[in-house]
């Protein structure tokens, strides 16, 4: 396989495909312009039809919405707050930077919004088992959390390479009662975990719901997952109006599969003066071929049940993605993002590993907030946008996840840990932690194996262990 998707011609903005005068917010699957659909084995069609009908009915049912709202209030911690970030903003051209704090949700990221909704739906459909794919582990942990809360059997597929890199998250999921299945096929990463989850679903669809973690996959997943996350933008839009008195100039979010970005973008789709900017994982740089920028560096194609933008070679074989952020390390993207990019309503550009890590450290030092590395891609975009807009500008950032899970990576990246620290803390590590923690145990070890005695009901304890990522 070649190492990069062959270049494509720049495209003129395409029509939305919506009826004349329709709000962009009214767009719903199966198709978003030329993207979306259901490219699945026939065996799954009945289950997708069932899911589509069940979600449509539940979403229109006030009692379902009330149950989910109450869970969000008393379990997730919604509404999440909006935080002014003036010291960070000083580095962003003096613009006003506002952070939508999804990192403060239970389990430490926006992921819980989707997971609780789909878990409630699972029970409503009379199914008793959920399966999920996970890359870094954050969607897997959120799913395991919801499964524990609602007494569902839970199986999480995770690429073998990721289980090795993220051994603590494997332990977290198991602690929550989930079965974690390492996937040893293909590239042994997230896309292969997704393949294996789909194989499981085909074989067990009668009693199993596939709790997919992002706005990708076959219809109705892209629409359903967006609906479950759009609370982010609805809250944030009102909060920004309250504190600023006007809408933001730009909304920025990181994009892997794209769930946190769709969640915050959606409420602003029909505000033409609000720019929408998605930041993709640029890895070593799109020109190097080692990246995960499906929109910037990919081409239209079909993967995992949907037609969208995709990293692929000239034969249509999927190309492995690369990013320091495991949660953005996926070769595809949700079809609604591909559509928003094609129509020109949203812009997407890559942020390199280095740019993301610099932004991560800047937020730590200026605001005392450690963001997830995924989220740091959005922060790098916020710095660029703030500098473009200047002191009058207002930039809304989806702070999609907390970064405790990334402290080990940051310690290595910034050389924060000395050899002495490593030796001194060696014996604090358990066998399972050893596989995932190499360089930063003085920071990580204290927060990891020792607190496993905390009851799983303790929301703060799980969030503190923090492996919930911005995306997947």
């Amino acid at each position, binding site marked *: *396989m070649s190492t990069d998707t062959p270049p494509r011609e720049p495209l003129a903005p395409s029509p939305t495909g919506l009826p004349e005068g329709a709000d962009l917010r009214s767009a719903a699957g199966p198709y978003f312009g030329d993207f979306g*659909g*259901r*490219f*699945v*084995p*026939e*065996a*799954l*069609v*009945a*289950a997708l039809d069932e899911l589509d009908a069940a979600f449509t009915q539940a979403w229109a049912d006030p009692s379902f919405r009330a149950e989910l709202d109450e869970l969000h209030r008393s379990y997730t911690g919604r509404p999440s707050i909006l935080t002014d970030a003036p010291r960070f903003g000083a580095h962003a051209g003096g613009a006003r930077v506002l952070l939508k704090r999804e990192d403060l949700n239970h389990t430490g990221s926006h992921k819980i919004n989707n997971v609780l909704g789909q878990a409630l739906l699972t029970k409503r459909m009379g199914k008793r088992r959920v399966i999920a794919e996970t890359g870094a582990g954050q969607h897997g942990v959120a799913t395991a959390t919801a499964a524990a809360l609602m007494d569902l059997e839970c199986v999480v597929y995770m690429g073998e390479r990721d289980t090795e890199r993220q051994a603590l998250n494997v332990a977290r999921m198991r602690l929550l009662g989930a079965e974690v299945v390492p996937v040893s*096929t*293909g590239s042994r990463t997230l*896309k*292969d975990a997704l*393949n294996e989850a*789909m*194989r499981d679903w*085909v*074989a*067990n*669809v*009668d009693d199993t719901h596939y709790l997919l973690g992002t706005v990708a996959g076959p219809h109705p997943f892209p629409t359903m997952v967006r609906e479950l996350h759009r609370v982010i933008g609805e809250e944030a839009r009102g909060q920004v109006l309250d504190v600023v008195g006007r809408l933001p100039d730009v909304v920025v979010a990181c994009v892997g599969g794209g769930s946190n970005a769709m969640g915050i973008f959606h409420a602003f789709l029909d505000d033409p003066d609000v720019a929408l900017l998605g930041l993709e994982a640029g890895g070593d740089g799109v020109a190097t071929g080692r990246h995960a920028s499906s929109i910037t560096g990919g*081409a*239209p*194609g*079909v*993967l*995992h*049940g949907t*037609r969208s933008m*995709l990293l*692929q070679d*000239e*034969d*249509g*074989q*999927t190309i492995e993605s690369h990013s320091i952020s495991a949660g953005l390390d996926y070769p595809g993207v949700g079809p609604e993002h591909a559509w928003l990019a094609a129509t020109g309503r949203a812009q997407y550009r890559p942020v390199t590993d280095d740019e993301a890590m610099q932004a991560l450290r800047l937020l730590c030092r200026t605001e005392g907030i450690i963001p997830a590395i995924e989220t740091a891609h959005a922060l790098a975009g916020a710095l660029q946008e703030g500098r473009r807009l200047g002191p009058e500008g207002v930039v809304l950032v989806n702070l999609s996840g907390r970064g405790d899970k990334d402290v080990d990576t940051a310690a290595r990246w910034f050389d924060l840990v000395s050899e002495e620290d490593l030796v001194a803390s060696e014996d604090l590590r358990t066998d399972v932690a050893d596989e995932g923690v190499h360089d930063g145990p003085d920071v990580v070890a204290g927060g990891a194996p020792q607190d496993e005695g905390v009851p799983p009901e303790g929301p703060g304890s799980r969030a503190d262990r923090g492996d919930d990522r911005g995306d997947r």
Partner: protein
Amino acid sequence: MSAAATAPGATGTGTSRTGAAIDAARARGGAALVGYLPVGFPDLATSVEAARAMVAEGVDVVELGLPYSDPVMDGPVIQAAAQAALEGGLRVRDVLTAVEQVAETGAAVLVMTYWNPVVRYGVDAWARDLAAAGGAGLITPDLIPDEGADWLAASEAHDLDRVFLVAPSSTPDRLASTAASCRGFVYAASTMGVTGVRAAVGSAAAGLVEATRAAGAERVCVGLGVSSAEQAAEVASFADGVIVGSALVRALGDGGVPAVGSLAAELAAGVHR
């Protein structure tokens, strides 16, 4: 149908070559034997030789698999073979070469492919080049007719067979719409699951074949799980064709071309029992 008229081996009349091969096998007694092997496993030349050996030993319709990076409908045996083929450098154009060489035997040759490689190649260009190579059509495990308007048009234009799948979970409406979209035969997946060798063919298979025929299908072949002459004979008693994949792939991996030939002979004896 002018494009098809120039393709070697094509009748150019709009009749299904796969269907004709199945009908000829039925006329000899029993059912047709459909054998699957992925192109490029263990290498291009050997995969072609093995496919030709299957035909010599009684396989009526050949399915050549186009190895793909993300084969969600395949179990471990075929996944591993596809991965080995890709690691060996197999390219999509090699599949057309293999089609041409296997079609020389006179067997109907279908390509089984996930959809993205065809999208990337260009649906109409792929249909044109497949027809020119002597291919009979496509089996598309992750393309349902609902999403296949461009393939329906291209296969008409180039006189190719279209094989879509039905499953035990398919509703009567979907059986009818899928059967109406197929040309050649309807592929009935015997169980809910992926490809692979199973001790028993799903008990739902006979019922699914009956329901698919009742929904309008002219020919129904059964796949997923068939590995022995006994199972082949059982399926042949109620279906128009018996599809064998993983067992042949495993034979090729374990015993090379001779093992594929002898398994094909056993299976052929089973379907014509």
